[in-house]
């Protein structure tokens, strides 16, 4: 149990350092990438590319194991359907991301330096998560 929690801590730390190093915590870079018809900034492509190539290669080896090292089973979504909540939710997320340039990870990393924008964004994001919970009736 202790090692399980330490593993999560290490993964989170590596994740956060990667976000900060890659510049994803600077929303100007995100909007620069999303602004394909303006002053386009390709940085995000290198970040996502580096991350996705790494997971695509390494996940194959990991998932070939019967179980993870410190737990009994892999917890993976077994949803297969491309349904309306998936697409509508992704569209809402995209609109929010395109307005200010924050997705959840970089906003959290920004909280680590008490960035003013993260301090405005995060409570609203949490409210949005709570609102979804309420409307879904749980």
């Amino acid at each position, binding site marked *: *149990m202790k090692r*399980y*929690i330490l593993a*999560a801590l290490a*993964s989170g730390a590596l*994740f956060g*350092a990667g976000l*900060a*190093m*890659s510049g994803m*915590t600077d929303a100007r870079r995100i909007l620069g990438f999303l*602004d394909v*018809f*303006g002053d386009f900034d*390709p940085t995000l492509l*290198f*970040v*996502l*590319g*580096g991350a996705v190539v*790494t997971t*695509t290669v*390494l*996940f194959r080896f*990991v*998932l070939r194991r019967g179980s*993870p090292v410190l737990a009994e089973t892999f917890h993976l*979504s077994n949803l297969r359907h491309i349904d309306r909540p*998936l*697409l509508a*939710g*992704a*569209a809402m*997320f*995209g*609109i*929010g*991301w*395109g*307005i*200010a340039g*924050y997705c*959840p*990870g*970089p*906003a*959290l*990393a*920004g909280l*680590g*330096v*008490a960035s003013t924008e993260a301090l405005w*964004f995060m*409570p*609203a994001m*949490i*409210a*949005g*998560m709570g609102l979804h*919970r309420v409307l879904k009736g749980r």
Partner: protein
Amino acid sequence: MTTWMTALAGGVMIGLAATLLLWLNGRVAGVSGILNGVLFPSTGDTAWRVAFIVGLVVAGGAYIAFVPDAPQPRDDFSRLGLLASGVLVGFGTRMSNGCTSGHGVCGIGRLSMRSLAAVLVFMLTAMATTFVVRHLWS
């Protein structure tokens, strides 16, 4: 290092962090989902989620604060824009069960068609939104 090199290196770190969490704990490194489990604990597996988020916030913040030439967060964006964007990101990522990390980095890494569909939708809507906000609105 030039911007694209730190971007690529940071991206690989994010991919390694996600691989570590899947390999050791069998968990998907989706930031919005992990955060949701911290804010609205349900199943009793909250501790590892807290550890991941703490690691992300502290390491991300420490990198921004202490590493020379680390990219700094923006701080002059419209507060109203941040609030509206936060609500949309929070609601949308819950509705579609994932954000840039869960669907993007991890979902594509395990070749999930659902995640690929979500990524295409949020990328395109984000680009369209940035276009509207930057080129039509102002």
